[in-house]
C-alpha cells in the first residue's frame, strides 16, 4: 500500500524547541479504519490536524485520493472532523447543525432536507431535529457531531477522541454503533485515542504513536502478538518485562541472563548487549512444560470473571503477570509456584530504548 488512498510522508512539526511530530509516514486504503493510539503529547492530535488542514506541517506531504493536499485549505479537502468537544454550533438547531456543511457547499435546498433527515435517522436523532444543541446530553451531541461530519460525504473522516467525555457504558455502546455506521456509509476514518481498548475494539489497523513517531502500524491482533518496540509492548495490553544481558548468540537464537535466570529467545544480538524480554500474561503456563522457567511467589490475585489475573514476585524482585482460566489449587499468598513459557512467545528488544 505504498500509494494509499491517504498517504502522509515524512510529516514533521515542531513548536519552539519541542518536536511534536518527527517524520511520520502513514498510508491507508479506502474504507479502512485506522486508530492513532498513544499517550497524550505523542503527536496524534497534531497528525490529525495536519491531515485536516488545520495545521501546516513544517515538512512532509499529505496526499488524499491521488491529489497532493499538503497546502490545500481545510474547506477544500473533503476531510470532516469530529472534535473531542464536538464543536457543535450553539446558535443552530440539531437539524441546522447537520445541514451546515451542505449549505456551505451550496447544495440545493431540495437535497439538503432529505439528506439531513437520513443522517439524523442513521444516528437515531430524528426526534431531536428541532431541538437546541444546549438541550442535548453528551452522547446525543456526539451523535449529532458524527451526523454533521458524515452528511457531506467526506473522503475521509477524522475523529479526535470523540468518546472521552462519555461514561464507560455509553462509550462501549457508541463504539459499536459508530463502527457499524461507518461500515454502512463506507467511510475511510482515522480515530485518535489514548484508550487501547477502544483502539483494539474498533480498528482495522492501529498506529501506535510515541514521542512524535509511529512505533508500529499493524492489525490489533498483530500489535498484541508481536509488539514492535518496548513502548508498544507496554502501552498495548499487559505484559511481564525482564531486563537482561545476552550471554550467547547462535543460529538466530540468544540466551539472555536475567535476574530470574537464563531465558531463551529468538533474535540476533551480540553477546553482551543489554536487552529487554517481554511476555504476555496469557502465554505463561503454571508448570515447567516450556523452556523459559521461573519460580515466583503469588502476591495478589484479581478475579476478572472469565479469567484470573495473578501477580507474582520472583525472589530477585521481578514482577511477573499471569492470566489463567482459574486460580491454581495450590495457590495462596506467598506460595512459590512454577511457571514457564515458550521461546516463540518470548519477545526480545534492545534495552537502550526500554520504556
Amino acid at each position, binding site marked *: 500500500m505504498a500509494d494509499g488512498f491517504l498517504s502522509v510522508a515524512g510529516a514533521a512539526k515542531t513548536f519552539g524547541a519541542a518536536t511534536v511530530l518527527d517524520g511520520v509516514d502513514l498510508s491507508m486504503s479506502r474504507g479502512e479504519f485506522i486508530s492513532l493510539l498513544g499517550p497524550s503529547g505523542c503527536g496524534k492530535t497534531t497528525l490529525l490536524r495536519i491531515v*485536516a*488542514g*488545520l495545521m501546516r506541517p513544517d515538512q512532509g506531504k499529505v496526499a488524499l485520493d491521488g491529489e497532493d493536499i499538503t497546502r490545500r*485549505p*481545510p*474547506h*477544500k*479537502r*473533503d*476531510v*470532516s*472532523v469530529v*472534535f473531542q*468537544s464536538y*464543536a*457543535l*454550533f*450553539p*446558535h443552530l438547531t440539531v437539524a441546522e447543525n447537520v445541514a*451546515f*456543511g451542505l*449549505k*456551505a*457547499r451550496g447544495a440545493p435546498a431540495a437535497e439538503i432536507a432529505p439528506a439531513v433527515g437520513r443522517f439524523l435517522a442513521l444516528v437515531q436523532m430524528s426526534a431531536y431535529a428541532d431541538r437546541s444543541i444546549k438541550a442535548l446530553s453528551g452522547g446525543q451531541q456526539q451523535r449529532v457531531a458524527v451526523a*454533521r*461530519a458524515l452528511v*457531506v460525504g467526506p473522503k475521509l473522516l*477524522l475523529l479526535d477522541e470523540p468518546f472521552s467525555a462519555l461514561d464507560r457504558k455509553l462509550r462501549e455502546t457508541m463504539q459499536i454503533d459508530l463502527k457499524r455506521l461507518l461500515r454502512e456509509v463506507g467511510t475511510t476514518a482515522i480515530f485518535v485515542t489514548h484508550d487501547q481498548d477502544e483502539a483494539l475494539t474498533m480498528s482495522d489497523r492501529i498506529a501506535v504513536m510515541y514521542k512524535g513517531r509511529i512505533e508500529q502500524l499493524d492489525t490489533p491482533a498483530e500489535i498484541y502478538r508481536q509488539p514492535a518496540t518496548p513502548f508498544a509492548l507496554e502501552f498495548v495490553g499487559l505484559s511481564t518485562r525482564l531486563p537482561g544481558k545476552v550471554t550467547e548468540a547462535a543460529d538466530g537464537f540468544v540466551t539472555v541472563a536475567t535476574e530470574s535466570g537464563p531465558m531463551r529467545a529468538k533474535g540476533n544480538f551480540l553477546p553482551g548487549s543489554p536487552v529487554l524480554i517481554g511476555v504476555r500474561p496469557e502465554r505463561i503456563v503454571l508448570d515447567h512444560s516450556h523452556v523459559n522457567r521461573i519460580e515466583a511467589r503469588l502476591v495478589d490475585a484479581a478475579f476478572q470473571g472469565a479469567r484470573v489475573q495473578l501477580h507474582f514476585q520472583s525472589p530477585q524482585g521481578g514482577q511477573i503477570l499471569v492470566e489463567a482460566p482459574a486460580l491454581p489449587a495450590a495457590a495462596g499468598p506467598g506460595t512459590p509456584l512454577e511457571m514457564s513459557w515458550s521461546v516463540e512467545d518470548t519477545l526480545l528488544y534492545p534495552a537502550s530504548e526500554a520504556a
Partner: protein
Amino acid sequence: MNSARRIDPVILLALPAVLYLAVVYGVPLIVLLGRSVMVGGMPSLSPFISFLSDPFSWTVIWNTVRIAVLVTLVCLFIGYPTALALARAGGVAQALILVAIILPLSVGVVVKAFAWQIVLRRDGVVSQFMTGLGLWSEPQRLLFTEAGLVIGAANVFVPFMILPIYSVLKLVDPRLGEAAATLGASPLYRFFKVALPLSLPGIVTGIAFVFSMAASMYVIPNLLIGDRFQTLATLTGRSFLFMRNEQLGSTTAVVLLVLTVAVVVGSAALSKRLGGAS
C-alpha cells in the same frame, strides 16, 4: 397573606449604590422631568408641543441622530476587526493590543478633542498628508465639519465598541471555526454564519454604548464643530448656560433622554433575544 415574598438578603448589597444614585442622579432627574412638564406651576405638555412644532428642533434632533449613527458605524467597522484580532491574538500581542485600547481612556476627552483640532486644521497633518499624496488639490480644513466631528468622536468611543465585542468573541470556542472549515465553509461563509451570529450580543451592546455616548456628547462637538452645529446635548447646555432658558433645556434634555433610553433598552432586549438563541 403571610410574608410570602422574602427579600433575598444578598440584594441588600446593592443598597449603597442605589442610595448614591438616588441622591446624585435620581433626584435631579426627577426635578428635570418635573420642570419639563410644568409651565407657571401648572402641569402642561405645551413645552414639548412647541419644541416639536419648531422646524429648527427637528434639525437639531436629526443632527443628533445622524452624527450618533455615523459615529456608531465608524466604531463598528473599525472596532469589530480589532475585537476579532484581539480575541485571536495570544500572549504578548493580546496584552499589547489591550493596552493600546485601554490606555487612551486615561486621556481626558478635552485633551483628545484639542489634539484633533490641531490634526484636522487646514495646515494639520491630515491635510498635509492628503495634499502630499495628491489626493486633495489644495489644503482643506476638516475642523468644524461633520466629517471632523465623526472622526474625532469615533476615536474617543471606539474602545466601548471593541471591548464588549471582544468579551463575547473570546468565549466563542475556536473549534467552531475549525469545524465549519472542515465541513467545507469558506472563510467568508464561516465569518457570516458562525463568528458574526455568535458575536451579535457583543455588537448590540457595543452599539448601545457608543450610540448613547455619541448622542449625548457635549465637549467634543463644542471643540470640533462649534456653535453653528447644534445637537440635543449642546442645545441643552446652551439653554442652561447661555440662554438661561431652563424650560427649553429641560425639554431638550428629556427628548435626548427618551431617544437614548429607547436605543439602549431596545438593544438590550434584542441582545437578550439573540443571547437566548445562542
